[in-house]
C-alpha cells in the first residue's frame, strides 16, 4: 500500500486531521472534531494506527477522553475519572504555601508501543495515570507523586503539568516523564518507583540553581535507536544526556536564544535535532519577528537556521511544547503548529517548509502518523 501521512492537530477549539500522500504536497484538512473544546493532545497508537486517543477538556465541563478505532472517522468517549490514589498531599503554590493536589486536565497521552489498549496519561496537577483497557478506566501510578520531592514541586505559568512521557522502545519498563516545574524523572519498573534525573541542569530562576527538583523542563525526546540519549528543551537551555538522564550537559551552542518549548529528533538520524528558539520567557515570540527552526546535525552545539518557506518578518507566534513532530518516511518530514493557527510541514528534514493549515485556532499539539 502506498504510504501516506496523517497529521493530528489539537487546538484550543477542537481537533483537526490533515492528510496527504507520501509526496506531502497536497493536504486535506478534516475538522473541527470536538469543536469548541481544548484538545491538549491527540495521538495514535503505533501498535494499531487506527486507534486514536484525544484529550478533550473545557473550563466548564472538565475532562473527556475520546477514542477512535477507525482512524478518526468515528469517536466515542471513554473513561474520564482521574482520581489520585492514597493521600493527596500538597505541593507548593505560587506563593510558596502548601496547596493540595487537584486534577485539572490531561496534557499528554502516550500509547504503549505494543498494545493499543495500554496508554499512559500525564495530567495537571502533575501525576501519571495508566489504562490497560483502552481508556475505560484510569489508575494513578502514585509512586511518582509520592516519591519524596512532591511537596517541593511548583506550578509553572501554564500550571503544574506532567506534559511529557517517553517509553523506552527496548525496555518498556523504563519510562521518563517531565513536569513543569519539577524536572525530569525516570522509572525502571514500569512506573512503580521514580527517581529525579536533573543532575547537570542549572536554573537561575530557582533559589538553588542546581537543586535536584524544581527545574522547568519543557520537553524531552529520545530516538528509538539510542534510548540512552535524551534531548531536553528546558525553560532556558537545550540539554542532552548520554546515560539515560543520570547527567545532563548543555548543547545550546550557537542558538540565538536557548529558550523554547519543543524539541524533535529526525526519524532516521539520531544526532539530528530541531528546536524553535523563542526570544524569552516574558516575550513568547521568535527573535526579530522571524520564525526560524534550528537544526543541529551534531546532536547539539552547532545549529543552523531553517527559514525557507517560513515567515521572516512580522511573525510573533509561539510554538508550544507538544506542537512539533516528525514522520517516518525515508525523506523525513518535520511538522509544527503555532499559536497563530498555522501548521507548517517540511518534506525534506527542514530544508523547505510549507503551511499546510493557516487559520486554525491556536495549536496545542501536533502528532504525525506514517501509514501504509
Amino acid at each position: 500500500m502506498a504510504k501516506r501521512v496523517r497529521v493530528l492537530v489539537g487546538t484550543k477549539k477542537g481537533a483537526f486531521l490533515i492528510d496527504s500522500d507520501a509526496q506531502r504536497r497536497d493536504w486535506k484538512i478534516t475538522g473541527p472534531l470536538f469543536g469548541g473544546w481544548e484538545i491538549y493532545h491527540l495521538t495514535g497508537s503505533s501498535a494499531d494506527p487506527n486507534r486514536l486517543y484525544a484529550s478533550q477538556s473545557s473550563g466548564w465541563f472538565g475532562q473527556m477522553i475520546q477514542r477512535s478505532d477507525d482512524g478518526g472517522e468515528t469517536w466515542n468517549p471513554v473513561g474520564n475519572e482521574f482520581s489520585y490514589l492514597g493521600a493527596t498531599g500538597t505541593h507548593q503554590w505560587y506563593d510558596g504555601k502548601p496547596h493540595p493536589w487537584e486534577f485539572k486536565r490531561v496534557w499528554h497521552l502516550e500509547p504503549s508501543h505494543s498494545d493499543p489498549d495500554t496508554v499512559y496519561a500525564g495530567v495537571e496537577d502533575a501525576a501519571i495515570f495508566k489504562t490497560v483497557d483502552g481508556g475505560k478506566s484510569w489508575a494513578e501510578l502514585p509512586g511518582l507523586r509520592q516519591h519524596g520531592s512532591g511537596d517541593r514541586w511548583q506550578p509553572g505559568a501554564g500550571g503544574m503539568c506532567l506534559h511529557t512521557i517517553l517509553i523506552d522502545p527496548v525496555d518498556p519498563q523504563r519510562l521518563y516523564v517531565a513536569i513543569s516545574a519539577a524536572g525530569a524523572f525516570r522509572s525502571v519498573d514500569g512506573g512503580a518507583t521514580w527517581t529525579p534525573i536533573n543532575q547537570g541542569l542549572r536554573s537561575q530562576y530557582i533559589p538553588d540553581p542546581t537543586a535536584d527538583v524544581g527545574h522547568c523542563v519543557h520537553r524531552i525526546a529520545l530516538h528509538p535507536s539510542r534510548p540512552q540519549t535524551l534531548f531536553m528543551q528546558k525553560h532556558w537551555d537545550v540539554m542532552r544526556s548520554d546515560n539515560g538522564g543520570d547527567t545532563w550537559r548543555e548543547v545550546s551552542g550557537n542558538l540565538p536564544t536557548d529558550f523554547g518549548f519543543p524539541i524533535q529528533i529526525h526519524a532516521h538520524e539520531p544526532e539530528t535535532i530541531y528546536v524553535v528558539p523563542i526570544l524569552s520567557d516574558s516575550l513568547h515570540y521568535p527573535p526579530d519577528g522571524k520564525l526560524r527552526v534550528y537544526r543541529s546535525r551534531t546532536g547539539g552545539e552547532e545549529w543552523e537556521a531553517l527559514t525557507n518557506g517560513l515567515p521572516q518578518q512580522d511573525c510573533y507566534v509561539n510554538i508550544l511544547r507538544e506542537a512539533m513532530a516528525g514522520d517516518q518516511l525515508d525523506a523525513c518530514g518535520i511538522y509544527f503548529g503555532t499559536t497563530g493557527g498555522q501548521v507548517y510541514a517540511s518534506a525534506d528534514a527542514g530544508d523547505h517548509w510549507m503551511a499546510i493549515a493557516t487559520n486554525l485556532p491556536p495549536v496545542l499539539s501536533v502528532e504525525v502518523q506514517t501509514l501504509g
Partner: protein
Amino acid sequence: MIVRVALPAHLRTIARVSGEVELEVAGGCTIAGVLDALEARFPALRGTIRDHGTRERRPFIRFFVCAEDWSHHAPDSELPEPVRAGREPFLVIGAIAGG
C-alpha cells in the same frame, strides 16, 4: 415521574441528543436525584456537571429552575411542583465566562 432536563450545547453533543431530555426519576425529585438519573442514562456525562469524587457541582455549571438560580441549593433540595409535573424543565447552564 418524568422530569425534563435542558442541557447546554456541548453536553447535548456528548450525550448525542438534540433537544431536551426526559428522564424517569425514581424516589425523591431532588437536584441530586435528577443528576443521578441523567448520568445513569448518559454515562458519558459523568464528571462533566459534577465532580466524580466529591459530587459537587463544577464551578462554571449553573442550575436554573422556574426562573430561579438553584446552583447553591443543597443537592437533596426537592425540586418545585412545575418541574416535578414536567411543565418546566430543569436547566443545566454553562456559565457566561471565558473566550
